[in-house]
């Protein structure tokens, strides 16, 4: 009983900042820090925020960014994971160690050199520039390799007896069996890159390539003084798609994060 109370109290504390933002975003500015139960509700803040910055463009950019990253990650990591799981070749041990090195030397830390590289490639301030350092994901390779290793060798052999080549076997046998892992990895990847901030902040400088997170920062730090109602509305706006997806697919989300964590 006591435990339930404590659990609920902590849950309340944990959700409090979000409730606070919801309150402020849905009420007129004069109620932004006054909690009277009958305060009038309004959507005004959202429409003002939407009009004050090119959020539609930012949404589109973020959408293209996460699609590009996830799509390329799935292809590249699948191929590499298949190589590590089912091919024995000289140098595979070293290659695997080189892949795993990325788990520690994260792209987040190599911002200075990666900026120079993007500059040399002439693609600064573009969506591919945000995506490239993250495309070959060591985490994805590792996760899929572990999964592919659990696929019974007999299924592989059976496909080959029927005349399937290496890539066909991968597509017909391994990929379908790893579907739950793909879902898990996809959710983790999308929420990571939807929320990523530092690298996109550095590498973008125009509305045409900025993702939502950077757009929100530019919006709330320069455009708006300190109109908290609008900032809260904009904040909720940028988090809304993930938040709504999370509320709808709570179970899948939690299980995906669990699955991605059990290595």
């Amino acid at each position: 009983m006591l435990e339930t109370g404590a659990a609920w109290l902590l849950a309340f504390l944990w959700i409090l900042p979000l409730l606070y933002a919801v309150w402020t975003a849905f009420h007129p500015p004069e109620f932004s820090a006054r909690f009277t139960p009958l305060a009038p509700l309004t959507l005004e803040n959202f429409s003002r925020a939407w009009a004050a910055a090119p959020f539609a463009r930012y949404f589109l950019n973020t959408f293209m960014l996460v699609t590009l990253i996830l799509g390329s990650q799935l292809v590249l990591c699948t191929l590499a994971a298949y190589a590590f799981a089912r091919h024995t070749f000289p140098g595979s041990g070293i290659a695997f160690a080189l892949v795993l090195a990325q788990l520690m030397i994260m792209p987040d830390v190599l911002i200075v050199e990666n900026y120079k590289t993007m500059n040399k490639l002439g693609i600064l301030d573009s969506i591919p520039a945000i995506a490239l350092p993250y495309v070959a994901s060591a985490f994805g390779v590792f996760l899929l390799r572990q999964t592919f290793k659990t696929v019974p060798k007999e299924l592989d052999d059976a496909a080959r007896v029927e005349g399937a080549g290496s890539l066909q076997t991968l597509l017909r046998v391994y990929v379908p069996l790893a579907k739950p892992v793909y879902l898990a990895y996809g959710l983790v990847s999308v929420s990571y890159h939807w929320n990523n901030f530092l690298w996109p902040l550095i590498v973008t400088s125009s509305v045409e390539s900025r993702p939502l997170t950077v757009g929100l920062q530019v919006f709330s730090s320069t455009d708006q003084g300190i109109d908290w109602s609008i900032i809260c509305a904009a904040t909720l706006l940028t988090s809304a798609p993930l938040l709504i997806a999370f509320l709808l697919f709570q179970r899948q989300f939690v299980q995906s994060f669990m699955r991605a964590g059990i290595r």
Partner: protein
Amino acid sequence: MHRFSSTIHGWLLLLPAMALLVLFTHWPALATLIDSFYSTPRQRRAPVFVGLENYRVIVDDPVFWQALSNNLWFALGTIPVSIGLALLMALWVNDRIAGRTIVRMAYFTPTVLPMIAVANIWLFFYTPQYGLLAQVLSAFGGSSQNWLGSKDTALICVTIVAIWKEAGFFMIFYLAALQQIPPNLGEAAALEGASRLYFFRRVQFPLLMPTTLFVLVNAVINAFRMVDHIIVMTRGGPDNATSLLLFRVYELGFSFWDTALAAAMTVVLLVGLALLALGQYVFLEKRIHYR
């Protein structure tokens, strides 16, 4: 012949991922090291070899030591507290308490929100006079304080935000591990009349050890990687009181455009992370077996 084709196949499959890894992880890591021994290229001056000069500048810079000590305190604050809370949350949510779906959702929600967005909310939370914290405190007769503007409290404030963001994420891993523990262990313990605490201490906690170590590795890396909320809430201030190592890299590289110093600073950060990883690896090796 078959062996040869397997080699070709293997490397071909690996090639696209490997090329990108070399280009955006291995090469930049090496280039950072090389650049850290050269001066920053300026408009008409090409970089010249300066040996350890950049490192000397960093070591002589009090802001570096401040950022290092801030980062260590930040790590010491976030790692144990967020792991402890995560464990507590998982134990609660794993028990059949009333409304546990809602409770679990509340714990996990910060994980799916962008750090940059929640940092904005917390900024409002901490605002003097006007923010929720100030209002609650003044209701209890406390005086209003500029939490983020004061050198004494700013670091604690950003540490709390990090704990809040991370605990629910780590909870998930504990929850997964708790669900792997066979229920008959709990039933047996209940039959024997073991207390809840005893059961936790002698059964659950030891069985959760691999998870704790996995979460620990993540928590350590995160403690040196999280800077989004610093950029939004304090920009390292007041007076560098919340400057962290990666934030300093960002500041040197992209505010002062001193890329050589930023490179040297990155090397320091990477070496630190490598040492920590090595230490954890030696520590982990005995306990966890990857297949």
